[in-house]
């Protein structure tokens, strides 16, 4: 009886989730076994088994895209957790203006990604960007075009992501820091521990779960990078920033390769599901009791 009532409360949300999230996942899976190209409608929708996956595994652009994405995810999430830790350590002290600093740190997080992407695109502009001016001053002949450079363009995307989301990592780590009781530090001080020893042997082990959590969250999120690439580089130059989400978008929506695009979607989904399961595994039962990351 009780559970039947619960059903009615869940139903509206389940309807939306089922139609716009669950069904699409299965639909992608089904379509990935077909050849369906919108620009070649006369080919129709033909079942081709695993052909799309075979193509995907041998497509040099896709493999390059996977490599780029994994490097991007690894580099940004580590940098973000490191910077986030630094910010959290400062925010955890009590000082005048702490509330203001906390709000200030949230500003990059609140800015629409499209806006921050345009902002970095302007800063990295080849003729009047701040980046060039800070590096070379008025010697305009030395100015670089970072977004048209195969090495600098991915770095520019990394800068854009790290700037925007380090504060999110900081908040998760800060929540971890706040659970450490002051008595532990007092005891350590009595034992004559230096600041570094306190950090190394007390703080760090105690916030390890929070650090891992922040790392995992950033990994999951960095995997979704799209806006930055769309605005700043359009995947270029020469595919140097062609991350998986952008490649999938291009194949599906610009080239109309529905079957092949679906195979990319399924690949991306499996990766993210694996990450989600690691997350659930890590938090274990706590996730349902506390409702979240604390």
């Amino acid at each position, binding site marked *: 009886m009780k559970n039947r009532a619960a059903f009615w409360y869940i139903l509206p949300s389940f309807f939306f989730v089922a139609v716009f999230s669950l069904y699409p996942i299965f639909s992608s899976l089904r379509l990935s076994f077909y050849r369906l190209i919108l620009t070649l409608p006369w080919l129709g929708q033909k079942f081709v088994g695993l052909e799309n996956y075979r193509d995907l595994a041998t497509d040099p652009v896709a493999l390059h895209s996977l490599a780029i994405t994994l490097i991007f995810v690894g580099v940004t999430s580590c940098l973000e957790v490191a910077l986030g830790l630094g910010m959290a350590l400062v925010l955890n002290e009590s000082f005048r203006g702490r509330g203001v600093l906390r709000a200030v740190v949230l500003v990059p997080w609140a800015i629409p990604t499209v806006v921050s992407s345009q902002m970095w695109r302007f800063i990295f502009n080849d003729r009047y960007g701040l980046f060039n001016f800070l590096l070379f001053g*008025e010697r305009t002949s030395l100015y670089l075009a970072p977004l048209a450079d195969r090495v600098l363009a991915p770095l520019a995307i990394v800068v854009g992501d790290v700037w925007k989301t380090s504060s999110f990592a900081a908040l998760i780590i800060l929540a971890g820091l706040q659970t450490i009781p002051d008595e532990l530090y007092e005891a350590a001080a009595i034992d004559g521990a230096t600041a570094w020893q306190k950090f190394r042997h007390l703080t760090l082990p105690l916030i390890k779960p929070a650090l891992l959590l922040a790392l995992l969250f950033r990994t999951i*999120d960095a995997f979704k990078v799209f806006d930055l690439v769309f605005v700043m580089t359009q995947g270029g130059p020469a595919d140097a920033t062609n991350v998986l989400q952008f490649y999938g978008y291009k194949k599906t929506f610009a080239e109309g390769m529905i079957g092949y695009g679906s195979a990319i979607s399924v690949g991306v989904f499996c990766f993210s599901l694996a990450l989600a399961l690691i997350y659930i595994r890590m938090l274990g039962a706590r996730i349902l009791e506390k409702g979240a990351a604390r």
Partner: protein
Amino acid sequence: MKKWLFSFWVVLIAAFSLVPFLWFVLTSWKSPAEITAIPPRLVPSFHWGFYRSALEQYGLLGYIRNSAIVAATATCVSIAIGSLAAYALTRFHSAWLKFYLLVLLCISMVPQIAIAGPVWRILNSLDWLNTYQGIVAAYISLSLPLAIWILTTFFKELPYEIEEAALVDGCTRFQALRKIVFPLAAPGIFTASILVFIFAWNEFFFALIVLTNPSLQTLPVGIALFPGEYTMPWGEIAAASTMATLPLIVLTLFFQRRIIRGLSAGAVKG
């Protein structure tokens, strides 16, 4: 830690967070000649021309209106539906409900491209591409995991006794929800609303594929696709970006505590 060293870190963090965007805001107040000047001018001449041309020539007001309609509607519906679900998830107990919560969590972690193609096809078959209801429907389902997770944490903290007393007095469950749980959970509902609103205001991927008609596009799409064949209209882009971001900065500064609480409690991504 030495006091001056600590102050140095505080200033460094503040500068890191603010300076890049401040630079962009200052750009929006420059004159066309000041934008391309080398060395760049630090203090602009507070020229409002780019705001005028962004609003008049590039139709920024239309984008702002679309964003406001879409984000507000999606937030209201998502929070209403999400509260029902969160209520059931905290007041009833069964393995299925727990499983549902985990499914929501997994869904919130899936990159957009994994569902974008079929979502486009569904909206296309409903003839909902380039409509408000199309993008709003997509945003409701995308924001529900976030809304439900945050609301669940807040609903869990409410004392069950008051509700129980009302139920004993002959209140129906729905009345108890409407008259007792909602008012008591108002701060939590407000927090979840802010986060869902920010999500819907900033979302780009689905807006890009669903809204191809410029008169219906939202701000992120307008700003990303700012027309500029040969030279980019940086002044106008900076002006539009400043206007698109202003409401969010105000929200963040005012409700900083709530947002932080919502993010670290819900901790589904924001």
